[in-house]
């Protein structure tokens, strides 16, 4: 199929295709980061992850409507405010859920799956009752719309760049938080040995709550960022859940680096396949490959060999 095009065209297409892959990578990573913390670090299977994302999206929608109506001056930068609020809203809801639900289930990971599924149904219906069954459109400030013209033929979408920047920022923050901060140290201590961490004076309940809240908050930011490229409706969150879990599991649940590597490899595979095959088949083949590899190598991409 490539025979008919000039070399310059092809170069441009490969460049843009590479970018498409990178944007998909950012999207996947952003979705998976929150879950990597919740599932990878805490072992909680949060099936309502998508609904936490959509909460962030709705917060962004509310912000955009509010700014348009009352504070048009703020509109160009409302997105940053919206992201902050999305983080706080989803994080707060996450902490509430941890307190009311998750903390009773740490020893029964499969039951967290059922309970959070129930939670996701409730949240979906709540969104439907509050915001209506239809999708809502989030209007973007004009500087986020359009693309950067690199050469005559290469154009890079600005909102894609923005999502990438947000992803990098969040990833760096999470990495610093987990590996460099005192809180991260406590989180890692609690996850590796809860009783011992408690004995040395770490408030394990508090750490659990903040960790869960952090994961949900990041989901909220992801949802907020996704309003630029995806749809916001009561059931939109459900679409993401399978992809997100596969990314985290494929990366090796406890490894942040693994999540990044897995998001990268899955997004590149899918984006490349999509270019050569039909979209549906690309999706099927990507998922099949991930499942197949997981069957052969269940520990995922990155794990340490330890004495069991």
């Amino acid at each position, binding site marked *: 199929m490539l025979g008919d095009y000039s070399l310059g065209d092809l170069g441009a297409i490969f460049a843009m295709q590479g970018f498409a892959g990178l944007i998909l990578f950012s999207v996947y990573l952003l979705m998976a980061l929150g879950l990597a913390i919740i599932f990878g670090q805490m*072992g909680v*299977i949060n*099936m309502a992850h998508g609904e936490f994302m959509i909460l962030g999206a709705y917060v962004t929608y509310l912000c955009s409507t509010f700014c348009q109506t009352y504070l048009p001056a703020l509109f160009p930068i409302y997105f940053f405010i919206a992201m902050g609020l999305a983080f706080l809203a989803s994080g707060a809801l996450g902490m509430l859920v941890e307190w009311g*639900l998750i903390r*009773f*289930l740490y020893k*029964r*990971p*499969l*039951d*967290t*799956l*059922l*309970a959070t*599924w*129930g*939670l*996701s*149904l*409730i949240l*979906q*219906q*709540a969104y*439907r*009752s509050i915001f209506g069954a239809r999708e809502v459109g989030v209007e973007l400030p004009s500087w986020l719309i359009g693309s950067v013209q690199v050469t005559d033929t290469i154009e890079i979408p600005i909102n894609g760049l923005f999502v990438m920047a947000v992803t990098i920022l969040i990833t760096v923050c999470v990495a610093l938080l987990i590996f460099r901060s005192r809180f991260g140290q406590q989180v890692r201590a609690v996850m590796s040995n809860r009783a011992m961490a408690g004995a040395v004076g770490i408030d394990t309940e508090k750490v659990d709550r903040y960790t869960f809240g952090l994961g949900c908050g990041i989901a909220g930011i992801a949802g907020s960022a996704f309003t630029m490229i995806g749809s916001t409706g009561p059931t939109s969150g*459900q679409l993401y*859940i*399978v992809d997100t*879990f*596969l990314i985290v*599991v494929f990366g090796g649940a406890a490894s942040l680096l693994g999540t990044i590597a897995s998001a990268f490899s899955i997004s590149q595979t899918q984006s490349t396949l999509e270019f050569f095959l039909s979209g*549906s*088949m690309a*999706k*099927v083949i990507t*998922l*099949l490959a*991930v*499942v197949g590899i*997981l*069957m*052969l*190598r*269940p520990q995922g991409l990155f794990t340490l060999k330890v004495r069991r």
Partner: protein
Amino acid sequence: MTNPVQTLTKSVTVNDNPFMKPVEWLSLFLLAGVILVVLPLMLDGFRLNLVGKYLTYAFVALGLVICWGYAGILSLGQGVFFGLGGYGMAMYLKLEASSIENTKIQSTPGIPDFMDWNQITALPWFWQPFKSLPLTIVLAVAVPVLFAMLISFAMFKRRVGGTYFAIITQAIAAILTILIVGQQGYTGGINGITDLRTLHGWDIRTDSAKFILYFVNGGLLIACILAAQYVKKSKLGRILVAMRDKEDRVRFSGYSVAGFKVFAFCFAAGLAAIGGAMFTLQVGFMSPSFVGIVPSIEMVIYAAVGGRLSLFGAVWGTLLVNWAKTSFSESFPDLWLFGLGALFIAVVLAFPNGLAGIWREHIEPRLTRRAKSLQAPEPAIVPPHGAPAE
């Protein structure tokens, strides 16, 4: 299993491991009575057909009791097996409905209508076996079971943990749905396989056929309960429980753990497939909306509400949730999703053993006490002569 009555008598005298305890026989008769006698007498044809549809989900819930409750393997992909069983049956019925006579307006008569719309001019090879009813019955169960074996063998050999397994089965459900929807020329796409008419010449759409199918379904369900009870009561059932608690220990008692897990998963898949086939017969079509993630998780909640360790509970749970769904969603469609969500949470937090747990903790002790006071004189009169000398 061969002769329940004999087993029952034995249990009174020698057997310390009866096939079913008296209270379990009571539950069985109660359930059979409700399904086969009370409901058909009480309900009109329409409602009875609905119950028949619910009962096909009960097959899945039964399988989940063995696979999830006993073996600790949570599958979020039971819809896959339910769907494969259902599609198998639907393919047979569709071929029968697509006789040359019925499809003469098509450009290729004799093949299902959706194939004709998709420019397929000959029946694909994997449809061929479904021309025969016996072969269909075998394949409708064998294909899902083999598929389950394929999935589970690789993973259990490599000791994939419970949560991973759940996520992977979920992904498989997603993949299969996309495939079925995308390959509409071979599968009927998102519409599924519809307009099914006769089973070996017998019109399944009539009220009398639906009435008969209801009893076939009910009977099969009772048979499957007994089969599941047999598995549960056998040493294999105890090994499953042992494995759920201390997998390593079972390995060091000389068992190949993977094999037992594969069995439990395949058994559940087989039951789901039977349910799927019966679903197609009673509802009259099959579509990808029963294969995906949402129905698969809903089926788990049936088992959870009934009690993940109770075979009878699973059936009652299925009936209860579906009854609630139908009646609530008729009057309060909004409230229903809140209710269903709350049900998930409540079952997990407050009643981890579901209906069966409530029964076992509050009702059964009373019944047993009652039964004991009635039976008490008997053992005194009939000494346990068959007991092993100690």
